[in-house]
């Protein structure tokens, strides 16, 4: 039933402009969903390929082979007192032939450094600081005799990028892997992630691993013992979102050779390339994406044959925000980071010189991640109102709802199905039912909320807001299912 039309809404220009705007929004949303659907088909062989690669290069061979390259793990830490010791213990149990861990205490205000010194009986050591990239003053370097592969750097606060720069400068291995101090790595994650560097050592420049939500899982001694979906809705939606928006999309990008984001929580790079690029960019909250885009730019300028991969099976577990307030901060920050990177590298957009990154990846970010959330929110308000006002037809309203909700549910479910079918993280059928329900329900509120946060992020970017905002965490210790 539609209400009788209000007089002023009957003006020709008003109805025409409403109709045109609504049609544009519908077309854009349909196009966006079609691209996501295409991504699913694009990602499909990549998942199969990853499984085949896993069987070919047995992990045992990689662990015992001298051809497996040594890796330096870079762990920036800022106010991570609750998680840092546990995370470090998890990193020390990795199955990998040769690796070092460089933890950088980035001027924490809490007792992060003290807890590390106490837990690992650290002693100050002398180390030359070459300063091949820019970072704040190093206040002290610590090591312990029992763990020769552990180095802790205490430095003045300078942000995450600054801490990573210090760590990569002090690293001694040819490959470096950035790991968030509040994350946990599967014990085989590194050995699996390094595979592209073994298969194609000349061309592989960076590899990203999959980030998954640890909320709900059973964690003990820094290891995820049992994978379970989160109990709280907001965490469950994020678990589904990590599969839909991050894992699947990045697998599709790998297929189309246009990976532009490697999460700062788990990514491996060639140290030499990073040093040549000048390390991570200061003053941005999207330093991980900015680095990869800059890497593509550098490779294109130098004419270097290069590849950036995303590998689905190595998993890094992260604690997802459990309240909307904290989640909102995180998402607006991510959006700001995206805007900053796109703005900084705007001259790469639609430029064939930069290959698929310039012609495909960056334009799709601009259209689907910057413009689309604005129009999506406009559509959510405008279409129902205009239908009620009698300006839009019932067919239009139903088609709009089908595109936003049915298509959305189809995409969320398909991503979850594909990821679970190939990677088999959840063995319990009940858990798969729960994830499926999460994939359906996230389309009614959560995705729209996400669009709102994106718009907020764009607004903050336009107002030149800086900083990370506070991220409260509960820590992994004693985390049990439903905890």
């Amino acid at each position, binding site marked *: 039933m539609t209400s009788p039309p209000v007089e002023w809404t009957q003006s020709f220009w008003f109805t025409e402009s409403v109709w045109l705007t609504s049609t544009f929004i*519908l077309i854009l949303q*349909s196009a966006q969903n079609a691209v996501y*659907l295409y991504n699913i088909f694009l990602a499909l062989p990549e998942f199969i390929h990853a*499984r*085949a690669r896993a*069987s*070919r*290069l*047995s992990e*045992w*061979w990689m662990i015992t*082979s*001298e*051809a*497996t*390259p040594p890796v330096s793990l870079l762990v920036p830490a800022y106010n991570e007192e609750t998680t840092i010791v546990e995370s470090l213990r998890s990193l020390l149990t990795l199955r990998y032939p040769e690796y070092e861990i460089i933890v950088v205490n980035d001027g924490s205000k809490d007792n992060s450094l003290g807890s590390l010194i106490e837990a690992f009986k650290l*002693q*100050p*050591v*002398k*180390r*030359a*600081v*070459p300063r*091949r990239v820019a970072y704040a003053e190093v206040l002290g370097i610590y090591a312990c*005799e029992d763990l020769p592969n552990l180095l802790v750097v205490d430095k003045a606060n300078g942000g995450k990028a600054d801490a990573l720069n210090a760590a990569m400068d002090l690293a*001694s291995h040819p490959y470096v892997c950035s790991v968030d101090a509040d994350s946990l790595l599967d014990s085989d994650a590194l050995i699996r992630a390094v595979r592209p*560097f*073994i*298969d*194609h*050592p*000349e*061309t592989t420049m960076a590899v990203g691993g999959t980030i998954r939500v640890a909320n709900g899982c059973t964690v003990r001694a820094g290891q995820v013992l049992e994978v379970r979906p989160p109990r709280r809705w907001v965490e469950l939606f994020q678990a589904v979102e990590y599969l839909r928006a991050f894992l699947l999309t990045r697998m599709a990008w790998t297929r189309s050779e246009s990976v532009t984001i490697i999460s700062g929580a788990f990514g491996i790079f060639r140290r030499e390339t990073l040093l040549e690029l000048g390390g991570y960019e200061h003053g941005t909250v999207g330093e991980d994406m900015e680095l990869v885009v800059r890497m593509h730019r550098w490779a294109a300028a130098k004419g270097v044959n290069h590849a950036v991969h995303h590998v689905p099976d190595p998993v890094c577990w992260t604690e997802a925000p459990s309240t909307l307030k904290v989640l909102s901060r995180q998402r607006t920050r991510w959006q700001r980071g995206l805007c900053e990177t796109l703005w900084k590298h705007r001259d790469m957009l639609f430029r064939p010189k930069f290959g698929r990154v310039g012609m495909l990846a960056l334009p799709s970010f601009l259209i689907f991640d910057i413009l689309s959330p604005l129009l999506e929110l406009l559509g959510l308000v405008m279409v129902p109102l205009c239908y009620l006002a009698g300006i839009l*037809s019932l*067919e*239009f309203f*139903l*088609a709009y709802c*089908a*595109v936003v909700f*049915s*298509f959305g*549910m*189809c*995409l969320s*479910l*398909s991503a*979850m*199905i594909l990821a*679970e*079918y190939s990677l*088999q993280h959840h*063995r319990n*059928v009940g858990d*798969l*039912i729960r994830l*499926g329900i999460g994939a359906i329900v996230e389309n009614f509120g959560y995705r729209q909320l996400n669009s709102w946060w994106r718009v907020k992020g764009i607004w903050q970017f336009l107002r030149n807001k800086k900083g990370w905002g506070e991220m409260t965490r509960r820590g992994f210790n004693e985390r049990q299912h439903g905890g």
Partner: protein
Amino acid sequence: MKFALVILLIVSLVLLGIALVLWLFLLLHRLVDNRRTTRGEQVAHDWLGLLLPVLEEVEPVDHLPRIQSHAVLESVLELVGELNERFRGQYREQLKDVLVHIGGEDYGLELVHSRSRQQRVRGCALLGWTSLNPNVDFALERCLRDVDGQVRVEAAYSLSLRQESGVTLQAVLASLREGGCLESERVRDIVRKYAPTRVRELASLLTREESAREKVLLLDAISVAGDLAQAGVVAAQLTHPAPSVRAAAVLTLEKLSDPEHMEQVAALTKDTDPKVRLAVAKYSVSMGRNAGARYLLWQLAQDVNFDVQRVATHGLASVKGDFWERLRAGCHQDPLLESLIEEAIEAASPTLVRS
């Protein structure tokens, strides 16, 4: 317009319907898969009890039952693989007999003829662990001509584990040239496996092959073989135009502990590529007792590349001598070198300096 909207509505609903059906399929699949996994775990548990006495040679391999079903065979093969890994090859010979007895070899020969690439790869991997049999060698050599690069790499690896097969290293390398297979670091391990028994073939190939990548692989394998008699062939590569070959040649001479070609190596201290200079620094560290090597270390400790500087300074700190004192005396102009020297002193005698 109305028609387009109806089509859009139908397409969206159909896609949702398909996703819901697939979800149900996933749930059913997981149920079946879980049951299969439980059965497989039970089989593995039962067979562990049967296998351990055979591996310990308490019971003969004939005591093991014959396996009829592929599902059971897959579970047992997985267990055998796991045991092989867990015991780091300790029971390798016994496991070979087990594989033949339970039909693993026949199964592997079946798999290498499969149409699926993944199955052929699995077949090659399985055959690599079986005992001497000309049929297996023939099947693996046939796989070296497979259209798929992954299958060829796996076949080459399996053949490298079966040293007795008559296939030449040249044939193995030739099979890996196409499709960029040689690029893989796994090939390094394959060539290395041939090193102990095929040093002459390696040296002969090194002089004949023109590709820089192949030369690097061969030099690496010669360094594993450790045959000082090949030092001359290796030194001839020190002037190769590719920096990767020059660096590999220096590192091979380092592994061979060859002091004879130090002069030629010394000429590379001014090489434009830092990887070559780093290799020279490592070579000089291993020749540290020699006065000429100490001079090289002193030179390289003042290199523009920090990694080269670090290796050289640490090397010089471990042998000390006049050049070390000279480096310490002249370091005050360069704070980085000064701190490197402090670091090296601490590393050389960790209990002496603690700030």
